[in-house]
């Protein structure tokens, strides 16, 4: 690792070069089903290269990882992130941005999108693929997509075409990180079927405008919803020496969505709101009417953020299987603060339906400008019928050290 760091941290090629190496350790006070280890490790090496080609910009990055858990896939490289496990190497950025005019950009390749206005939970962001290998990291997966974006006066516009579906990545079913852990009876094991996700992804258009203290926006999208619906094929269950094994399929539904975003500075607060109607002809997914409202206020070098999100339509199937909607309705409160020595944050999320919740705390210490030590912990609690409480066995303490360049 040190050799890699020293090799890559020297600017041997043109353009800008940046990245980091990080080692993380997790300690779990509880062993899920008597099998999961009490200590896990995770190592990451990330390198990014950025080059300006006239007015165009080319960016490429590669992430190499080692995980001590079963969540690491066997495929060395999965460029489109379509496999259901996290590969040792993955392409995080590989995009070219061409200015078609001073105010219009065309971006093509693999990149991340961030659309939503409300932090914590945003219906506009909900369709973007997530990697739940670490269920608390809220990591978005990049997409292979084409994006046209521009601004005319106070109006911004964006059109995205994602020709290839990048599916959500779920933790190993039956592990402590999988929300359905508590639902599996003893003597039953799950065999995940690596069914191929659909090829076509989605298309979306978004408009944003700023009028004084108001920011307003709207979006529409149609295509494949990248969060899979799990289907337990009990009809195909087989008896093995270890008990009953049930195959689990992943299915992907089509969904259309329309959303409105509003935000406004109101005195000391920034108020943001989103509503979205999501429509699917798939019986296992159904429709949703999701709204979120957030209020943010600064206190010195700290920020308090509260987000309330809910779905006016009850999901037609087990909520736990609809991972992204399982926590709704929820209240998310986050307090972050920057200090001279680093920063800290605490987050308290409450599932209002089942009374389950999640308390997170993190403290980062800047040893130098490039070395950072982070300590934290996540403690889900409450009813196992709720999205947070279902992660009860995954409560943990963690420590990470990062060297950036």
């Amino acid at each position: 690792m040190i050799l890699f760091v020293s090799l890559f941290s020297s600017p041997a090629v043109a353009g800008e070069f940046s990245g980091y190496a990080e080692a993380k350790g997790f300690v779990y006070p509880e062993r899920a089903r008597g099998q999961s280890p009490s200590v896990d490790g995770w190592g990451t090496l990330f390198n990014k290269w950025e080059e300006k080609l006239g007015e165009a910009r080319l960016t490429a990055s590669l992430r190499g990882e080692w995980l001590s858990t079963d969540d690491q896939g066997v495929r060395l490289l999965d460029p489109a992130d379509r496999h259901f496990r996290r590969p040792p190497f993955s392409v995080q950025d590989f995009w070219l941005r061409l200015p078609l005019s001073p105010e219009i950009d065309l971006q093509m390749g693999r990149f991340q999108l961030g659309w939503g206005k409300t932090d914590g939970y945003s219906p506009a962001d909900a369709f973007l693929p997530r990697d739940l290998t670490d269920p608390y990291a809220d990591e978005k997966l990049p997409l292979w997509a084409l994006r046209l974006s521009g601004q005319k006066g106070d109006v911004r516009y964006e059109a995205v075409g994602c020709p290839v579906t990048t599916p959500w990545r779920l933790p190993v079913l039956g592990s402590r990180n999988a929300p359905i852990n508590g639902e599996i009876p003893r003597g039953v094991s799950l065999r995940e079927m690596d069914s191929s996700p659909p090829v076509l992804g989605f298309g979306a258009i978004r408009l944003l405008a700023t009028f004084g203290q108001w920011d307003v926006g709207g979006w529409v999208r149609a295509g494949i919803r990248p969060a899979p619906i799990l289907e337990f094929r009990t009809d195909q269950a087989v008896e093995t020496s270890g008990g009953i094994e049930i195959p689990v399929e992943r299915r992907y539904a089509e969904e259309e969505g329309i959303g409105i975003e509003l935000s406004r500075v109101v005195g000391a607060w920034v108020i943001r709101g989103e509503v979205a109607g999501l429509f699917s002809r798939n019986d296992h997914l159904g429709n949703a009417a999701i709204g979120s409202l957030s209020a943010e206020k600064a206190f010195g070098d700290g920020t308090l953020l509260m987000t309330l999100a809910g779905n006016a339509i009850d999901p037609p199937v087990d909520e736990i299987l609809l991972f992204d909607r399982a926590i709704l309705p929820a209240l998310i409160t986050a307090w972050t603060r920057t200090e001279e020595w680093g920063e800290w944050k605490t987050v308290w999320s409450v599932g209002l339906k089942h009374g389950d919740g999640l308390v997170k705390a993190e403290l980062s210490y800047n040893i130098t400008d490039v070395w950072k030590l982070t300590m934290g912990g996540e403690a889900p609690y409450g009813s196992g019928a709720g999205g947070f409480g279902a992660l009860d066995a995954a409560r943990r303490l963690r420590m990470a050290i990062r060297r950036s360049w």
Partner: protein
Amino acid sequence: MSNKKTMVTSLVVIAAVISALLAGTVFAAPDARALLKESENRHRSKTQQYSGNLAVVNREGKVRKKGWKSYRQGYAGDAKTLTRFTDPPEVKEVGFLSISRPAGQNDDQWLYLPSMKRERRIAAQDRDASFVGTDFNYEDMEEFDHEKYRVTLQGEQTVDGQPCYVIAAFPLEGAGRSVYEKKILYLRKDILYLLRMDLYRKGDKQPSKIFTLSDLQHLEGHWVAKKWEMSDLRKGSRTTVVLDRISYDKPQPVGRFTLQNLNREGGD
């Protein structure tokens, strides 16, 4: 010939007397507003751009360094500024866009955070928050617009060996929210350039922060302080900025000072 010469001499004398009278109205008993207007006129430039190396030194003497580049179009009351951090890696690509608003309103400000891939609006009340871990807050990042203040000349004082006018500036009621109750400006008398500003938070008898400008140079027809220092007297920390690669009146690309550009990953 003699009459003609006498007439020319008389006109020169009259002109000199009128000039002296006019000058006297400004400089014999200078008015703070007139001085600030004159200062603004003298130092106005269409655009400015520079890269900056910034060092934050805390009470214990621990040093944190950052690099940024900054672009400005317009000046004071009609300024648009885009700032983009270049290092260290933790803040690389963080962007800040500030657009001046007329007197009575706070500037519009947005911060782009690469981790979120979108901008965040800075509420007026956030103006006291630290700007990316420095001793500058968001209000300090705005250019001083004297029209948003009631100003009075308080006298003269020497700063760094230079005689200066001392001007007190009080935020006007209804001119937008200010972090400060009072700002004391020290304008160098000969070139009317700001050398120091004492910043008083509300209710404070002593300045809570002192902003000093030094290493003045005359570049491309404009005076510029190549070194800035913001000392936070409460925290005991200071942030020093050294400007580099400064240029003036360079045409800025259309759309540089837009939210579209602020959100361009890896962009200027």
